């Protein structure tokens, strides 16, 4: 690296260089280990491009005969995402309140709040969906609850952080006026976290729209059910129709959420 010699010279001492090589060596060893021990049939790997090309060939042209039911399922997907986001927002507010250092009523609440956040966040939507399908049976309700459970952690964590970052001075002024705790919250905290609230809610809605498209694959409603059905019956042209619809849905979701963000913030 002739051009960067000055930089290189300044950046890496020999010890650092040695460490970099060691890190690289370790990375290589790990990759080689993964490659050599993974349980795949290598003939299949070399065959994969052909198989994929073959599959895609069978997908064209997309078959729109089932479009009405695809669109209906898309509408259901949107509803799952939207209703679940709304419910999650409502439920995440108290969780955020008790899991923010500066508003939590006491340490017990703080830990309960954090426990809710961590358990909600570290279990993926699909795993939640698996559980709720087992509980409530296949259908939209399992999907809504799964999305909701996952979103509470996300929203609660980010809102809680927003609460922790507020300016304390106005709160103090409200307390000095003799405002009760609740009134301090609605006049002092709510206005300050409003921008974060909108940003986080919109972001989560966008994510939920994507996640709702796959709920059907574990039986939890939405367009995934049609996708699964078409795949199971080898209707590849319908599969591609569904995929195009999902693409359109996800991209519109992104456009809508970025417009909302610009409008509201």
């Amino acid at each position: 690296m002739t051009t960067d010699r000055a930089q290189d010279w300044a950046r890496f001492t020999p010890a650092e260089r040695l460490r970099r090589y060691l890190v690289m060596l370790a990375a290589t060893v790990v990759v080689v280990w993964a490659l050599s021990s993974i349980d795949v049939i290598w003939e299949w790997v070399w065959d994969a491009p052909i198989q994929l090309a073959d599959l895609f060939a069978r997908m064209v042209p997309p078959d729109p005969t089932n479009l009405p039911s695809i669109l209906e399922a898309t509408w259901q997907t949107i509803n799952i995402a939207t209703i679940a986001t709304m419910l999650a927002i409502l439920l995440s507010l108290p969780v955020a309140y008790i899991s923010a250092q500066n508003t939590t009523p006491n340490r017990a609440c703080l830990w309960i709040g954090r426990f809710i956040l961590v358990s909600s966040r570290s279990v993926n939507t699909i795993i939640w969906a698996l559980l709720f399908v087992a509980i409530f049976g296949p259908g939209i309700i399992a999907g809504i609850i799964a999305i909701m459970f996952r979103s509470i952690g996300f929203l609660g964590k980010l809102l809680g952080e927003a609460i922790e970052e507020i300016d304390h001075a106005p709160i103090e002024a409200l307390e000095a006026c003799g405002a009760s705790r609740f009134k301090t919250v609605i006049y002092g905290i709510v206005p300050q976290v409003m921008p974060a609230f909108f940003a986080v809610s919109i972001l989560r809605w966008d994510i939920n729209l994507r996640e709702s498209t796959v709920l059907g694959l574990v039986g939890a409603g939405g367009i995934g059910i049609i996708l699964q059905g078409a795949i199971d019956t080898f209707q590849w042209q319908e599969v591609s129709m569904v995929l195009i619809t999902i693409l359109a849905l996800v991209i519109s979701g992104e456009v809508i959420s970025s417009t909302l963000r610009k409008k509201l913030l």
Partner: protein
Amino acid sequence: MLEIKNLVKRYGKGAPVLKDLNLLVQGEQLMSIIGSSGAGKSTLLRCVNRLVEPTEGSITLNGTDITKLAAKDLRRARRRIGMVFQGFNLVDRLSVMENVQSGRLGYISTWAAITRRYPAADIERAFELMERVGIAQYADKRADELSGGERQRVGVVRALMQRPEILLADEPTASLDPKTSEQIMTLLRDLARELNLPVIINIHNVTEAKEFSDRIVGMRYGRIIFDDKPAALDAAQMDEIYAGTPSEDRQEIGAVA
């Protein structure tokens, strides 16, 4: 009447910041507290409305001992004490009117507070006061769109909305330019007279303190060492008020520098 008796304040386990302090404020006078940084001026003011918990002693406002009050009664007592802050402490994202009305939060119902349906009398008074200090035209503006001087006027109106029995101001002009600072001081003095309101101001600008107040209290490291008419404050006393450092003073308590 505000009577402070044997007030002691200690933060944590450290040396006391206020040391057995006594002060009597009677009638509607504008009183300034001066003293170097760390003298305990803010601590003293904040003890009065218990934004800071006093360690020992009593603070009596028109017959109520503030130091003894628990949650609800404390809030009732705080309604009677207005406070103006150096950093204005407005809620930036709320309108000027909402900030002003937040001075009434101790009085109005929670529902009225949420829906912003304030009592007609409060709205009338808000407009009167805003008119008086010259910010009525900003009622619907967001607080963060105003200049510093205008924001402090909002802060003053918010405090006056409480119909306080006493007004505390902690360096209300320290974040303002000299001219605006003068305007705010004039405003505080005139309002004190118009509303028959005792006002206590922490202030670093001694010239302003002398010009606007009826009484000056000089603090040094937790004690009041000067308490008289502005005219009585001479160079020697100024030196004494502003001499020394907190640590020095703590080591040789009572010693004169």
